[in-house]
């Protein structure tokens, strides 16, 4: 198994499984938590992430297929999305392509929100472009909610991530426009985004 990433919470491996190339996301033990608490947290998050990905898929979104859950090891076995992270490729694209992808991002977030899913960590490093389709990954901080506040936090985070990682100001504008066009309740959400921005908190840039 080859480890391709180690984050604060999880390790990502690429491996063969039943003849396929897959990704295993494993939540790592934290020695600072007492065992009971640590087990419970990692188990809940593993289950929650898998569930959110499955319900996003049911709603017609492109997310990795969940093949298996190994709850004992706090592992999710999922489809390997063999493409490019949006974060790494979008700046170098032609404007027409950038616009297409940004509209896709806005539209996808609109469907997530419409279906009661909050991603929780929408940044361009959690989006992969493969075969002309946009895939969302990393639902570990997500939740089920239809609150405009939660939706607003989601969008605001994306806005900050774009600001921090991508120079072209049009990118986010296109995302926003597509979100508005594809979501009837977007007006209320955008209001929330402004309110959240005014609270002046520095959110995460690129996670």
């Amino acid at each position: 198994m080859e480890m391709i990433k180690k984050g604060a919470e999880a390790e990502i491996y690429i491996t063969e499984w039943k003849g396929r190339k897959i990704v295993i996301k494993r939540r790592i033990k934290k020695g600072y938590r007492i065992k009971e608490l640590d087990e419970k947290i990692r188990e809940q998050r593993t289950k929650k992430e898998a569930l959110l990905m499955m319900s996003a898929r049911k709603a017609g979104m492109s997310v990795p297929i969940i093949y298996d859950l190994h709850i004992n090891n706090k592992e999710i076995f999922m489809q390997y999305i063999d493409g490019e992270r949006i974060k790494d490729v979008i700046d170098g694209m032609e404007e027409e392509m950038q616009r297409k992808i940004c509209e896709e991002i806005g539209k996808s977030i609109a469907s997530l929100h419409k279906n009661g899913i909050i991603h929780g960590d929408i940044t361009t490093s959690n989006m992969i472009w493969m075969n002309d389709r946009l895939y969302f990954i990393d639902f570990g901080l997500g939740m089920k909610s239809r609150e405009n506040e939660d939706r607003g936090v989601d969008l605001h985070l994306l806005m900050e991530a774009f600001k921090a990682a991508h120079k072209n100001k049009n990118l986010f504008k296109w995302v926003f426009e597509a979100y508005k066009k594809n979501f009837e309740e977007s007006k209320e959400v955008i209001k929330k985004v402004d309110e959240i921005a005014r609270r002046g908190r520095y959110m995460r840039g690129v996670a």
Partner: protein
Amino acid sequence: MICLGIEGTAHTIGIGIVEKEGDNCKILANVFHMYKPDKGGIHPRESANHHTKYFPKILEESIEKSNIHIKEIDLIAFSIGPGLGPCLRTTATAGRTLSLLLKKPIVGVNHCISHLEIGRALTKCSDPVLLYVSGGNTQVIAFMDGKYRVFGETLDIGIGNCLDKFGREVGIKFPAGPEIERIALRGKKYIQLPYSVKGMDVSFSGILTASLLLTKKEDIEDICYSLQETCFCMLAEVAERAMAHTEKEEILLGGGVACNKRLQEIVKIMAEERKAKFFCPPDEFLVDNGAMIAWTGLIMKESGMEMSIDETKVRQNYRTDEVDVKWR
């Protein structure tokens, strides 16, 4: 240069006298007194009265301890915010009076940032993520793009507040943290409580309610133990996320709740597991104190900052990222 710094944003009135020689932070005196309400939480007006009452005594004591003559003081610093209005105004008035009497310059200091600066000075860390945990404040702060920024914070009450409120309901006197820490040492059984982390933010009100419900059927030792473990692990987790995100390799503790040995241990293990360094100044510099205000005043002054009396209006909601950080 020698600075007299006055802290008085909430329940504590403190005076620190600090000398800066090069980068060296020499504490000449650090005296404080804490307002402890007989019952209930902090009442801002009463706390301000407490500060007025104790200020002369503390001033005298700090000068005496420092072994300097009051005329040797070069600068007055005071906590300009954030904090409780009446307390801030009392402190600012004391600062202005001293500045005018001694004919020395004055600077108003951001309270939250002074916790970070005194920690940096005393523990010799250079660019840490600060986990700042006190009664009213719970924040994860780090320096980025020329400013101190809040990466995570509590979405409702501060961790200290949570412990105090729990204490009040079960008959532990304010501040309840130290007693809860002692009781928790006897706890053996972990009882599940809501674990509430949202990205880099935390919230404590749900845990408070759940812990209070447990008092009817569980031992107080086990509840205190579970309450601490849950809250402190949440704090360590958001601190770790901020470290991963900012790619910083030092973690510093600040604020009164950071005196808790179990919290120190948890954060220390977190740091070790990610091969980062853990820093924690002595207790008297973790709680609200005048020395941290004096020291921050000194580095501000050295970077060319100074205020006219008109500019010393208090700032109840002074935000961390509003501070013009000229010294870094």
